[in-house]
């Protein structure tokens, strides 16, 4: 087994140092307090600043703890900002897939729909931004569960509701489905929330690869799936391209 990672230990020491002091500290002060070379301390501070754990005063150049640390347990990306950064890609996905597009983030054991693009066929549709979907029976929710954006245990304790005969309600089948989603990098829901409807979704990643939301297309099962009831490969491709493009814009490397 590998030993502790030195730079992470040092980063933790810097955070403790900044948390202990009652005022902002300069680079030299941080370095000498911890017995680090200035260059080393600077590199770590820059990285901590990049992830918003540390803030630098623009006038004095001194460092203090960042606002993001105060909200570590809560979502760090504002949902309205996520919508704003996704809007062009979500539009393009609706145009290419011909289906309705939704973005979701977790909210109190449900999926909050934060963005919705109508199916581009000019039929009467209602905007359902602000609606709440079940985690275990929507493709957006299953993706959020699979990538740890929202806890699974709490949901299982609440005894998930069976919406149709296809809804996954048993912990083993749900766990198996989530493992498969992690392997594939996308997830589907076929007639699990209502008969005749299906959806597929993929994770949106932020800095460091952390999943901050999910994007999905949904519609009539005969359009989303092939004759064997499996999601259309072409739809999966355009969906994953859109998810990757948004993730890249949010600063996720490698996606």
């Amino acid at each position, binding site marked *: 087994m590998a030993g502790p990672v030195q730079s992470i230990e040092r980063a933790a020491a810097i955070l403790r140092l900044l948390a202990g002091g009652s005022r902002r500290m300069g680079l030299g002060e941080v370095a000498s307090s911890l017995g680090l070379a200035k260059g080393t301390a600077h590199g770590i501070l820059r990285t901590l600043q990049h992830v918003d754990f540390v803030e630098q005063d623009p006038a004095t150049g001194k460092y203090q703890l960042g606002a993001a640390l105060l909200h570590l347990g809560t979502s760090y990306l*504002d949902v*309205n900002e996520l919508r704003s950064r996704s809007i062009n890609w979500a539009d393009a996905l609706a145009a290419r897939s011909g289906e309705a597009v939704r973005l979701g983030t977790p909210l109190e054991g449900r999926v909050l729909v934060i963005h919705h693009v109508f199916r581009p066929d000019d039929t009467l549709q209602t905007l359902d931004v602000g609606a709440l979907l079940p985690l275990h029976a929507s493709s957006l929710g299953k993706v959020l569960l699979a990538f740890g954006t929202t806890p699974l245990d709490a949901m299982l304790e609440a005894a998930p509701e069976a919406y149709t005969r296809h809804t996954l309600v048993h912990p083993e089948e749900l766990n198996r489905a989530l493992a498969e989603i992690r392997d594939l990098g996308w997830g589907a829901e076929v007639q699990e929330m209502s008969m005749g409807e299906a959806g597929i979704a993929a994770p949106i990643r932020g800095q460091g690869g952390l999943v901050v939301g999910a994007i999905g297309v949904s519609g009539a099962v005969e359009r989303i799936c092939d004759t064997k009831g499996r999601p259309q490969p072409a739809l999966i491709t355009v969906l994953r391209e859109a998810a990757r493009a948004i993730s890249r814009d949010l600063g996720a490397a490698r996606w």
Partner: protein
Amino acid sequence: MVERYVMSIDQGTTSTRCILFDHSGRLVSVAQREHQQYFPRPGWVEHDAVEIWRNLQRVVPEALSNAGVEAGQISAMGIANQRETTVLWDPRTGAPLGRAIVWQDTRTAPLVEELRKQPGDEFFLEHCCLPPSTYFSAPRIRWLFDHVDGLEQRARDGEVLFGTVESWLIWNLTGGTDGGLHITDVTNASRTMLMDIRTLTWDDALMDFFGVPRSMLPEIRSSAERYGEARSLLPGVPITAALGDQQAALFGQTCFSPGEAKCTYGTGSFLVMNTGTDLVRSQHGLLTTVAYKIADQPTVYALEGPMAVTGSLVQWFRDRLGLIHSAPEIETLARTVEDNGGCYIVPAFSGLFAPHWRSDARGVIVGLTSYITKGHLARAVLEATGWQTREVVDAMNADSALALKQLKVDGGMTSDHLLMQILADVLDVPVVRPLVHETVSLGAAYAAGLAVGYWPDLQVLRRNWHMAAQWLPDMDAGRREWEYASWKRAVERSLGWIQPTKRP
């Protein structure tokens, strides 16, 4: 068969973009480059026309290679541009005579004040349907003649060409010093204060008044027709459309019928309503302008209501007050409260534009009590854009017999759902957002494609328009009227803040 595309150039205030569209009006490729903004003195805003031309030379090949498209697959090229920005150049060398003076530049304010007194607004409204404003091009040409030694004489000797940005780019694209076409389109010409918008010709009285020789003015052409072929950059590709950016957005939103309107929500916002072939002279503080002219078909006119400060109020809230970290967070903050708590913000940062046109107004925040939180202020920020739009829509409804039935929106602020709901509520009409966000570029592409038969007619373009979202009014009528009355009282309080400077 090889797929063919239409290329759209959007030469905007901050950047130059090249976008390729396919037959369904879908965006195929984008390339973009920003140019430098020069602020040599307070109120002055300038661009380097050579930098803009160089940026165009970069983004065109980039857009082609991004999509793996050959120049030969481009059926036509159309240009949408920042309006009213003034470029002067020497036709023998191709070099600009100084930097371009941008539409936001207010250096002509003293001159404009004089014009409003003598000969007065009516003279200008009679000839070009525009009241004197620092916004338009002709006062800038006069200013340059008065401040650059020998420039006026050189212009009389035929050594100077004038153009807005599309003229400058088309001249360069079609050969430049070696026989480049010196043309403009009717929409851009309608913003110079030099064109008679009934006859679509340069107006002798206005040219005399400003001392602008005809020889320096471009030939006025339709918004969509074959102007000529590019000789550099994309040799052989026909250049077939030019439109001012707001007119291009109207076209891209397929507002082809009288009464149809769009509003583009950005830093400032521009509501434009198609009034058909009727020229409606505004009695309520709107601008009468040319919407578009396709080849030799009848001219289509529009009423326009520009609002100076909308998105920039959110930027001010973010950058100057520091109450939010990013512009979209305004919605999160505004949703922490149920209503504005009785607080209103009138963002008359540099006076009020349509429909008031009051340069003596300055911003006010009214209704402050100890109850007000930053959430209420955030809400008042968004509502300010809603009520400004309402005032412009009321003016449009009063000026034309066509009451607005639905508002098509585009621009960056349309990602703010609370703002979109506020708009539907205060206007009491549905607000709809199209699937293609890039309406300015799409409009130029549509006009260019029509001119070469890439798209057969307006009906086909209409079918390409798809609704991406819709917000329906959901506000009690009594509350709407009460809030509107409060907003109007707030506007009253912003007026007359700037007193005429007393000279000692």
